[in-house]
């Protein structure tokens, strides 16, 4: 396994249709789990304001920021309309042995 894969959390730490926060060094990320058990990861802060997306609301493949209701497609990072205008950075994710790994390379 390459060093760029980071062990983030247990797979079952994220419930379906939800998101959790993962901090690594001085960076923060959001890890998502869809209803059909797919995992995704993005930067943890909304691109509009420094608000943790992990406090937000997951609707299918959309994350809504808890502060201003800005929305992003967390599978692509695409901003879905004001006040979210700048796309989110996304990261590859894999699940192995019940653990979620992020590739930060």
């Amino acid at each position, binding site marked *: 396994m390459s060093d760029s894969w980071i062990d983030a959390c247990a797979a079952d730490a994220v419930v379906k249709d939800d998101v959790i926060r993962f901090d690594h060094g001085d960076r923060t990320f959001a890890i998502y789990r869809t209803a059909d058990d797919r995992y995704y990861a993005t930067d943890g802060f909304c691109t509009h*304001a420094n608000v943790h997306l992990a406090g937000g*609301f997951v609707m299918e493949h959309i994350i809504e920021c*808890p*502060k*201003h*209701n800005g929305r992003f497609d967390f599978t692509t990072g695409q901003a879905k*309309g004001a006040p979210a*205008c700048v796309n989110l950075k996304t990261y590859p994710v894999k699940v192995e042995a019940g653990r979620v790994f992020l590739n930060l390379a």
Partner: protein
Amino acid sequence: MPIEITKRDYSLVGRDTKLAEEHGLANAQWYSCAIPRPRLKELMQRRDGPAIRDTLLWFALLIGTGTLGFLAWHTWWAILPFAAYGVLYGSSSDSRWHESLHRTAFKTTWMNDALYEIASFMILRESVPWRWSHTRHHTDTIIVGRDPEIAAPRPPDLLGIALAFFALKGGPKEFYRMGLHCTGRLTPAEATYVPDEERHKVYRNARIYVFIYLSTIAAAIALHSFLPLMYIGLPSFYGVWLAVIFGLTQHAGLAEDVLDHRLNCRTVRMNFVCRYLYWNMNYHVEHHMFPMVPYHSLSGLHQELKDDMPKPYGSIREAYREIIPALWKQRKDPTFYVKRQLPRTATPVTAPMDAMS
């Protein structure tokens, strides 16, 4: 460190803007009541049904009162249906504007956006700049120099507040801004919160608004009657008074420059008619703390948070028993504000917030 309160500068590009930034009040972390995540997820669930029902009823009432007004035109009886039409058009549009701005009214995005454009026009708020203004209001609620939506700056302009009941102060300003936007410009304050990539929409929408108003005026001239203006344009003035009554309960007279919505927002109990017209925005502390919760779930959210909240006001009348004396006192003493009392069960306000207030 306490902010020295002299004559406050409520502009977004002035002395208090810098003060707010220096004191860590801009884009700050706000207090949030504890609520179990599974319960919050339940409350955040979006549905189309309630808002479709409420919006269809709203349009039916607009059509019904508008038709009665048409039939009674040229008689004194027309006052009654137009009074109702005006409130539905000029006041209820406020809460529809607000809820669809947050995209929480409906589950379906295009429904929120369609209602938002319609309600923005009705309440005489250009949809793009006001979206960004309200976004700032949520970022920096009642932070002087940062929040563009402080309805009662200190000392309060009581004449201005009285004029607001018929949009006689804000309305002309909106038309001025609309004209400015038609020429492809923003005000200096708008330039602080409308991002570059959104500005072309401001100018486009302003031109659409002006086209609609000019078309309505042309229809009135062609028909030799101001009846068309009773349906489009004038209701934003003669019907807005109830939105002002509701709106002033949200923050007027409460603390400035605090990072706890329990101290600068009011939750007011209202009857079901008012809650329909106001789409439950009377649960205002709850809304500011958790803006992802749709209007039809705010009463449920209130139940979850009430032990960590100040006691809600029992009625609009009770709220105004506090607001009117507070504003009156602030004329002479701009440092005065109403200190909200938290119940013993509540998480205390942290020291820095006490110091700033």
